[in-house]
């Protein structure tokens, strides 16, 4: 029992990341009709927003410490961050410690700008082209973005820790009456799950309860008619692209403390997120969220030793296996609408 609860918990944070990325993918697909293979790269850039802010906050000047020596025997140069000069040592250290949550504020405008530039500069030229062309150009874009990040930050993962207060883990088992250590879960992953829930809620509320959201939903249902009513739907869709980029970016920022960001983390999530979108149903936002959590939890279960003892290697194929079964029984995915991608 405790093992099952543990794996459900485990699936939640992975599912959160899948759901956030898939949500953006579906938004873009539903509004613009573009299959965006560069979406994983946006997630990765989000994580590097956290790295960048951390770098900016730790920008330092060097002070020579005559009492200590470096590896060549010369006096040691100690780095003092400018932030500590500005705000004092303790406050400066706290600001650096909280760099990941601060990066949320930093990343939103950055990601929206990147998203809008991507859409206006490149992707809009491919609206009328076949899906295969769109996939090729966005995939190429993903590789370009990935190589730029590698050029700037190197190939190794860069540690980006969560604030001190969120390190360590919560002993869930004791709260539920199990033995100590039976179900432990890191604080930051719980924060990630809560954060994802808030973002998903916010996106749905935005689409459901604002005029802008209403127009976008109408455009998703029938773009031509909305255009005929004199509404500039293209501009709204561009903004949606920026928003979808911001959602992927936020998912990346908050993911940075879970796994040290590296340049190919986007690709690791991209393929799975596509499976999530297809399983959820192309163009269905609730479907994407549902499928994200479902597949995340299934993946966790499949890597349990007890299950792997019966079906070795199941952890690597479970997602695809389930995707095949769902698509065979429900060809439009869990919550797919009729008419989407069927022309």
């Amino acid at each position, binding site marked *: 029992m405790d093992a099952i609860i543990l*794996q459900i918990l485990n699936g939640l944070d992975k599912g959160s990341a899948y759901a956030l990325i898939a949500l953006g993918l579906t938004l873009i697909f539903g509004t613009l009709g573009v299959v965006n293979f560069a979406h994983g790269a946006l997630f990765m850039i989000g994580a590097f927003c956290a790295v960048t802010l951390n770098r900016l906050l730790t920008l330092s000047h060097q002070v020579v410490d005559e009492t200590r020596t470096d*590896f060549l025997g010369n006096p040691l140069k100690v780095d003092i961050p400018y932030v500590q000069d500005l705000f004092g040592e303790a406050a400066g250290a706290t600001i650096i410690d909280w760099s990941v949550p601060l990066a949320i504020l930093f990343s939103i405008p950055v990601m929206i700008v990147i998203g809008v530039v991507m859409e206006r500069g490149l992707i809009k030229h491919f609206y009328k082209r076949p899906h295969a062309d769109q996939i090729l150009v966005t995939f190429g874009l993903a590789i370009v973005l990935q190589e730029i990040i590698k050029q700037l930050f190197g190939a190794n993962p860069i540690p980006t820790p969560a604030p001190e207060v969120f390190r360590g*883990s919560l002993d869930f088992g004791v709260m539920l009456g199990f033995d100590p250590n*039976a179900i*432990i879960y890191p604080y930051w992953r719980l924060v990630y799950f809560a954060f994802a829930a808030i973002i998903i809620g916010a996106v749905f509320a935005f689409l459901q309860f604002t005029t802008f959201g209403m127009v976008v939903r109408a455009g998703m249902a029938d773009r031509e008619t909305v255009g005929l009513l004199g509404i500039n739907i293209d501009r709204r869709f561009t903004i949606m692209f920026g928003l979808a980029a911001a959602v992927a970016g936020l998912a990346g920022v908050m993911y940075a403390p*879970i796994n040290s960001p590296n340049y190919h983390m986007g690709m690791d999530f991209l393929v799975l997120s596509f499976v999530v979108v297809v399983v959820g149903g192309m163009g269905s936002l609730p479907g994407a969220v549902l499928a994200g959590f479902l597949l995340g939890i299934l993946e966790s279960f499949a*890597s349990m030793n007890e299950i*792997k003892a019966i079906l070795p290697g199941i952890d690597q194929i479970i997602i695809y296996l389930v995707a095949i079964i769902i698509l065979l029984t429900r060809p439009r995915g869990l919550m797919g609408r009729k008419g989407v991608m069927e022309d």
Partner: protein
Amino acid sequence: MSKTTLSRRGLLRTGAVAGAGVALPTIFTASSARAFTNEPTGGSVTLGFNVPQTGPYADEGADELRAYELAVEHLNGGGDGGMLSTFSSKALDGTGIMGKKVEYVTGDTQTKSDAARASAKSMIEKDGAIMITGGSSSGVAVAVQGLCQEAGVIFMAGLTHSNDTTGKDKKANGFRHFFNAYMSGAALAPVLAKAYGGDRKAYHLTADYTWGWTQEESIKAATEALGWETIETVKTPLAQTDFSSYIAPVLNSGADVLVLNHYGGNMVNSLTNAVQFGLREKQVNGKNFEIVVPLFSRLMARGAGENIKGILGSTNWHWSLQDDGSKAFVKSFGTKYGFPPSQAAHTCYVQTLLYADAVQRAGSFDPCAVAEALEGFEFDGLGNGPTLYRAEDHQCFKDVLVVRGKENPTSEFDLLEVVEITPRGQVEYAPDHPMFAGGALGSCNPGA
């Protein structure tokens, strides 16, 4: 009845293609004027540096390349000479190799076996490389070693830690200076038993490929010999990035030690996840829970940040060593590049010097003569104390470092502290040891 439609043009075309095809693979059927593959005829000799320049190990590859460039500079008489002055063999004098100026070409392994073989092949066939060296993965090392054996050039392995490289996949043309998984186990186990006691229950997470398997086998055997019990060994996919679902069951399994047989990005992520789950603050079986990373790399450890503090592991070499060879190398490398070299850089630099020295002593670039000069070669002054290149399997035997993640690093390079220098005698094994059984060196291939 079949109908033949052979035209004059068709016949000519077929003939031309067939002729070109026969003439193409020169490395296997090279002209008889040369005694061996790529025999240098002019005033220079070309070495092929095959390192990961793209892909996840690109940073390690870049450090290897820096070391190679430094070695070439020193061989040609430039710079401060580095380890040439501390090397026990005095055959090299800074005038290149056998009076020929050393030049080099580079290839990109991408840490993929097929790409690594293609780049090595291109350097041998197109650029005339007489020796191939480098690499940052055992899968790649085994693949390139096989290719060099067929092509008739010497392969001086870079960073490769799997037992198989000089075990079941050993080749007469291949040589490894780097230590291996067996040696890590033999060096690490006594330190672990001393630090954590003889009554421990271990849980292994292992990268699912040749290196991971041999390391798990080695560490398991070495720790069980000292009284530890192995509760469970779990293979993790190489492409895994989030290890939480593998880490989560560890605490409840009754184990009180987690052994991470992971390298590179895998190591960074699994260690980070394990620390996030609070494993190191837990008490199991009345003891502090401990994590062990048997193969440490400083370059990779940087990615794990604070999480490596206090964690034990082993390494081939570390820049803080105080012998003359290490100090000379750190000084030339640090002066040229501004930071200390990694263990990958060290083994690559040393391999280049060892090759050049063997050619010089043999008086020939012939791979068979070079191999003979390396076999059974005893040397010192290259940073690991007295070392033997064993003739039976082309593995170097030398001291092994047991290291611990440093609690109070003074810089971003100062991440590991040396806990113990395990003497060579303790990590030696018989050439027919079961963990290394199954292959044969065969005979050296001069190609041509």
